[in-house]
């Protein structure tokens, strides 16, 4: 191999230039390292700060949008006198009741349609048609049927929850691997055993995706239904506030909706992590 003499007298053989791969060379160090979380938080802080400045300087009047400080204070008062907590509880109960009816309903319908021929013909065709109904557009009918009480709101939520959950679960059943059924036969699993050991676990990911959609839809419909006509709940709080230009209360209501939605999403995500530990992507 040919060699050259470097300036400092060392010998060096000719070959391709080599580089060292390590953490330092691959990701050049920044001079100041700020944790991602803090950076992201700083963005939010900046926005809220700008909002507060706009409110304090009078650029943003309280009738248009109350400042963050005022919103926080109002929220604290509403919690202390119990208004907010009882309204939250009323709203949460509506969503939970809607889910408690819609989830089993959708699951049973999807199993019927996915696993039996008769069920497929009788259930799936109408479901595929009805899923295109704009659920919110059902409101006038629902009010005629159930009045303006809780029953109307809950049944609207049931409608909204059932379709996304049904579609996702049914699709997952349809996508079952026939080779897994073959396996079930060769190891002598019966019909119930096959459903328990093969069908349900395989369908679970699709079901949980549907459940997350369903939870999101449930909150959306609740917000709508509570603002049309209600005598309690978060939406009622907001509509009443609108009449008195209490934008701070409206923002508090929005924040509570957002938090509740976030919370239910976190619950489903937690279920997914627990139940789908076997999935390759996890």
């Amino acid at each position: 191999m040919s060699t050259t003499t470097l300036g400092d007298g060392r010998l060096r053989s000719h070959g391709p230039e080599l580089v060292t791969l390590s953490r330092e060379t691959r990701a050049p160090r920044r001079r100041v390292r700020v944790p991602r979380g803090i950076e992201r938080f700083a963005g939010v802080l900046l926005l809220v700060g700008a909002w507060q400045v706009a409110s304090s300087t009078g650029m943003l009047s309280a009738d248009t949008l109350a400042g963050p400080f005022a919103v926080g204070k109002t929220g604290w008062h509403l919690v202390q006198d119990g208004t907010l907590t009882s309204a939250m509880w009323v709203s949460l109960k509506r969503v939970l009741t809607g889910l408690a009816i819609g989830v089993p309903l959708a699951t049973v319908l999807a199993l019927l349609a996915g696993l039996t021929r008769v069920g497929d013909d009788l259930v799936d065709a109408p479901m595929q048609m009805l899923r295109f109904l704009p659920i919110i557009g059902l409101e006038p009918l629902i009010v005629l049927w159930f009045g303006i009480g809780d029953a109307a709101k809950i049944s609207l939520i049931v409608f909204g929850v059932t379709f996304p959950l049904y579609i996702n679960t049914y699709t997952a059943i349809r996508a079952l691997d026939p080779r897994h059924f073959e396996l079930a036969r060769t190891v002598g699993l019966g019909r119930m055993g096959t459903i328990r050991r093969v069908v349900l676990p395989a369908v679970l990911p699709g079901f949980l995706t549907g459940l997350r959609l369903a939870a999101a839809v449930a909150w959306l419909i609740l917000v709508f239904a509570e603002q049309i006509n209600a005598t309690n709940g978060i939406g009622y709080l907001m509509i009443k506030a609108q009449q008195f230009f209490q934008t701070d209360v409206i923002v508090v209501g929005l924040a509570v909706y957002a938090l509740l939605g976030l919370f239910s999403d976190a619950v489903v995500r937690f279920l997914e992590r627990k139940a789908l530990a076997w999935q390759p992507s996890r």
Partner: protein
Amino acid sequence: MATEPVTAFLRPRVVNVDGVARRFETRAVLDDVSFELRAGEFVALLGRSGTGKSTLLRALAGLDVEIEGHIEVPACRSVVFQEPRLLPWARVLDTVVLGLRGDDARQRGRGVLSEVELNGHERDWPKTLSGGEAQRVSLARALVRQPDLLLLDEPFGALDALTRIKMHALLQTLCRRYRPAVVLVTHDVDEAILLADRVLILGDGRISLDVPVDVPSPRLRTNHAFARLRSQLLAQLGVDEAAEGLHESPVKEYVS
């Protein structure tokens, strides 16, 4: 294998296939297949790709309801497919004992897992297993049922050469212990000679050749009887041996 072909006919018959045919639409993949198997007999089923080996094996497994002709098989059968066919949501031990009843099922499952050298992997998810490990789980799942008939559809086809050699040795050991009748579908002539008591070749919808493997162990490729049978089988399969030789695997020494 260590069976004596001379006395094989004295053992009870466990498989009787008589005049079996299978059509897909109008095309007859199996036309008139007949053969018998004695208890504990290890048979390799060779054939070019698409000749209906898997179709025949599925018929023996009882997975095909549209088969014509007469098939008699033991009630207790196990299948190992080409791909391990594990359920992604079932841990290794749960997969092995899938469909088994009885209090001692899990205990037996653990025993068989250690026989395929997978102790300690009982709670693993299938996604974490290598190809060879996954196929060993599949083998354990088949053997834990102590079948009278073990059906293997190119079980080592997807494995690398080194893993395949290990699996051959493992399969031999386990078959000696559990003594099932075995039908091993393969496209690998050497694998057939190495493992089987008898080789069947499927061609044109029939068994076109049925020969005993009279090669003394250890069955090395360099052995004359090995080479002679190899030529015979390749000729029957319509493969030009000179061309085939070019593709010989670099790992030659099989353990018998």
